[in-house]
């Protein structure tokens, strides 16, 4: 294989596919939430709750797959708080979402006492048999754990459901105009609740992936801003699932690349390299939103507005 400055492209692609799983899952969940007209800024908190809940479940049961279920449940449980506050008590979504992140970071830290330095049970690689041995491609595409393929499958499923099914149409309608949806007899708050729970579960899955596979161990603040990047990717993707895939690979790629550059002894100081994914997030968002309101056009019209049925 060719090397670029000590970096092997096959390994780079393989590791970017792994690196992008958490943000892709979280971003997909948030995309569905935002499509239904809810802005949940608590992705980071739900991710880290997923990370710790998944970690604890996996360690206690010794089963990594149950660990992922636990992670999803943890994220969904935290999102339930958000749903109750914003959908039943009509709290401000932005403030509630930020509080959710703070709360999740704190609670996960508390729950994680005594889990530092423990190794979680290993998640196996999907057995592709001889496919794995294809030079280059085998390493790139067929050497991963099942969550990598699952996340790609979820992208396709989300795209299909939102675009072609009645469920998807109803979710989009609720996010477009809750008043009109209510007038037609749709239960706006119930639909949004379901979407928020889905978003929480996906963020939790993403978090669990970090603590169970990507790192894999538990430390406080393990998600390190992945939730914020996931939020940015939703805007970057202009609320289209397939673009979430591109966005997640792009950001995952930059993260991996800067790690590789560091390892390869690049002349650029480490600090610049580690801030690069965030800088590029900001840049991309600026470029996206400068494009003559195209993003604005695609954004769900009722995004961030609470709904209360009156008269």
């Amino acid at each position: 294989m060719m090397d670029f400055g000590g970096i092997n492209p096959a390994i780079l692609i393989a590791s970017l596919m792994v690196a992008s799983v958490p943000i892709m899952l979280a971003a997909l969940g948030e995309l569905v939430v935002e499509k239904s007209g809810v802005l949940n800024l608590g992705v980071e908190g739900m991710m880290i709750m997923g990370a710790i809940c998944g970690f604890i479940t996996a360690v206690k049961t010794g089963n990594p797959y149950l660990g992922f279920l636990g992670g999803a449940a943890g994220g969904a449980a935290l999102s339930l708080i958000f749903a109750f506050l914003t959908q039943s008590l009509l709290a401000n979504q932005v403030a509630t979402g930020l509080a959710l992140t703070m709360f999740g970071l704190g609670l996960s830290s508390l729950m994680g006492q005594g889990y530092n330095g423990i190794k979680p049970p290993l998640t196996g690689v999907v057995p592709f048999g001889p496919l794995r041995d294809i030079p280059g491609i085998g390493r790139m595409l067929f050497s991963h754990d099942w969550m990598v393929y699952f996340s790609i499958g979820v992208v396709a499923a989300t795209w299909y459901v939102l675009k072609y099914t009645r469920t998807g149409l109803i979710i989009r309608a609720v996010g477009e105009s809750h008043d009109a949806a209510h007038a037609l007899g749709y239960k706006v708050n119930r639909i949004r609740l379901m979407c928020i729970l889905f978003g929480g579960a996906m963020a939790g899955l993403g978090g669990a992936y970090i603590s169970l596979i990507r790192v894999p161990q538990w430390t406080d603040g393990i998600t390190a801003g992945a939730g914020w990047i996931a939020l940015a990717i939703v805007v970057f993707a202009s609320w289209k699932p397939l673009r979430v895939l591109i966005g997640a690979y792009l950001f995952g790629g930059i993260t991996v690349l800067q790690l590789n550059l560091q390892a390869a002894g690049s002349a650029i100081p480490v600090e610049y390299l580690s801030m690069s994914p965030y800088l590029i997030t900001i840049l991309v968002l600026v470029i996206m939103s400068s494009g003559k309101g195209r993003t604005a056009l695609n954004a769900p019209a009722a995004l961030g507005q609470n709904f209360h049925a009156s008269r």
Partner: protein
Amino acid sequence: MTENQRPLLLQVSGITKAYPGVIANSDVSFAIGTGEVHALLGENGAGKSTLVKMIYGLVKPDSGTMTWRGAAYAPSEPRAARASGVAMVFQHFSLFEALNVAENVALGMENPPGMGALAAKIKEVSTAYGLPLDPARMVGDLSAGERQRVEIIRCLLQDPKLLIMDEPTSVLTPQEVEILFRTLRQLAAEGTSILYISHKLEEIRSLCDSATILRRGKVVGSCIPRDRTAREMAELMVGAVLTPPERGAKKDWGDDKPALEVIGLNATSPIAFGTSLKDISFAVNRGEILGIAGVAGNGQVELQLALSGEITSANGMVMAHGVAIGAHGPIDRREIGFVVAPEDRLGHAAAPDMSLVENAFLTGAVRQGLTQRGFVDWPATRAFADQIIQTYDVRTPGNHVAARALSGGNLQKFVIGRELLQSPDVIVINQPTWGVDAAAAAAIRQAILDRATAGAAIIVISQDLDELLELSDNFAVLNEGRLSPPRPVKGLSIDEIGLMMGGAHGAQAVAHV
């Protein structure tokens, strides 16, 4: 045909519904026969909308019963109402702008067929009723009339027994109204009952077989609209004798330049799905009122923004008394006497969560001198707010109340009064009486006429043709961002106006068949 000959479809008996602080319906009873076009008449807040929402299952009555073809009828949700055969076209469109026509229709149906089959069905039904529609178009790109077609088609695909229409004609051109009425008559002839809500009395006289009149939530009478005059019905609705607004004597102000002149104004719309202004020219002298008609979404909002200074243009495109001000923003324009009352009361004309005093300050600061060395002069601001409240009879517990808490008509009186009180030179008002009841509307119209008598140049943008004809000296139509040459109102016939409006978007050809 009389009512007795029709088999009874829906009987409403003794329905009562109370909300905290207000009784929306009190012991309301009426009946609709099969194939009957029945009107519900009443002012805003008379309880018409609440009543039909109960029939449609959106709201549950506190007491009272309904019978549908002889059986008890109490829909718990719209789905149940639709299953019985009730369909509803909403006053404020219940459409989704970012979805296409077929998707919008599918959302209103219980078991829609696949998108392909549905699109074909929409085409078929819409052509059959003379309401052509392209299923693939985004609703955000449609005109008001076309949007209403989407709603009607959505109902027709359900094969309804009872079609409820809540103020369907308020945003339509005369031609579009004609098309709508023909569709409705065709439906009625096929045996569909129609419950028609409106306060346009001439329309009701020409369309409806019978009418129930509501005032403050109670049934105050019923009549056969054909046998009554519009005036009689109006007085039943309001419960008082109405006087039309009067215009003071005109005088010649002897200016050599018009108070406001717009020359070849072009402006790009800042709004998503908006209409850009194209080569707009007109002039208004002091003491004159120019009425601008047109179907919503043809550039009304943009024109108002361009006149207020929220959209700036080349300097020479807007002239005040011969001085170029096109490139100046709203504050500069206010200083020289431009005041603007936008269409959107909550959010544009007034900050919803701020008090009336604060809202009075927001546009009055410059002309009323409500600041002192950069600080708000609260006593003067309160006095100004109180003056508006008194002069324009704004019903409010006090000047400290949030704008949001006022009813639509009262807030409208406040925001229009606030502008008219600033001894303005040029007044631009968009939709002065939108959603305002007859008494408040008459007060607002009278105030506008008084300002014209006092020497202001006034531009009234409205969709209510009757209002424009009553107020204006000259009349022009905005259509797709272009303004027709203004014509004197005297001698204009309603047909000519319809042709000027021409905004029936392809429906005109059908109308003249």
